[in-house]
């Protein structure tokens, strides 16, 4: 009985977490991006209080991969700050923070036509997400 109650609570809370969605169309957060930081694009994901910091980071990378495919750039370099981008310090995860109980994540991105040291490939990232979605 206790396990059943815990399962229902966890299920209920996870249903309240910010979904993978455009932040402009939601009051609970989502993704957004803007260009023109030099040659970089900034991609962000904002979550609500039911969303984990890990999830906002994963969703940020997912959105970056989508933007890369849309731009017909199969690869991208991800940086946690402009400063790190200038010095070529790539990252595997975005930068993240928590305001109160709400997490957010962002990364600066350089989209590429060809593979490069430190670059991530967009297609496998999206494929992983398609598999996750298919299992739901």
């Amino acid at each position, binding site marked *: 009985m206790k396990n059943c109650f815990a399962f229902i609570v966890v299920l209920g809370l996870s249903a309240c977490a910010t979904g993978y969605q455009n932040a402009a169309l939601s009051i609970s957060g989502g993704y957004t991006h803007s260009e023109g930081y030099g040659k*970089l694009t900034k991609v962000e994901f904002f979550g609500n209080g039911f969303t984990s910091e890990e999830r906002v980071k994963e969703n940020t990378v997912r959105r970056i991969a989508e933007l890369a495919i849309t731009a017909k750039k199969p690869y991208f370099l991800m940086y946690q*700050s402009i400063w790190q981008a*200038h010095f070529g310090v790539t990252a595997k995860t975005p930068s*993240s*923070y928590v305001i*109160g109980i*709400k997490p957010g994540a962002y990364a600066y991105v*350089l989209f590429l036509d060809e593979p490069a040291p430190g670059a991530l490939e967009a297609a496998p990232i999206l494929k992983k997400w398609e598999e996750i979605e298919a299992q739901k």
Partner: protein
Amino acid sequence: MNIRKLLCGLGLAASLSGCGLPWAPENGEPTAIINLRSTGSVLFCMDDKRYLVVAGAGIENRPFPVGRKLNFVVTKTVGSDYNYTYSCSGRFAAEKLEAGKKYYLAYELVQQGCRLELYEQTEDSPVGLRPIKSVPRSDC
């Protein structure tokens, strides 16, 4: 509370209140341009006076004085939940801006806070933005 603590408190309150003189270049005065898209309006201190440069949608590129030390302060409301509103102040001191150059002032949220960074917009950087080294602050 002694008088020094009181004055410190008043000074801090004044610096956070967002008040400052408007600044605009005099005729022919050389300036540098700073893009304020991530900060919005900016307070800066120069020669022991505090100035406010207003920016917003459509007016992101604003002129700033050159050749003198500038201390920037940006305070933003960064979020809210049930009973709280969260704000964070980022500070950055630049030794001097150079006439005719373009810069970008970046306000970034980080774990447990925020930071302010200044970049020169230049093709010399592989990503188009070169970090400007900060110098010790001297807030007014």
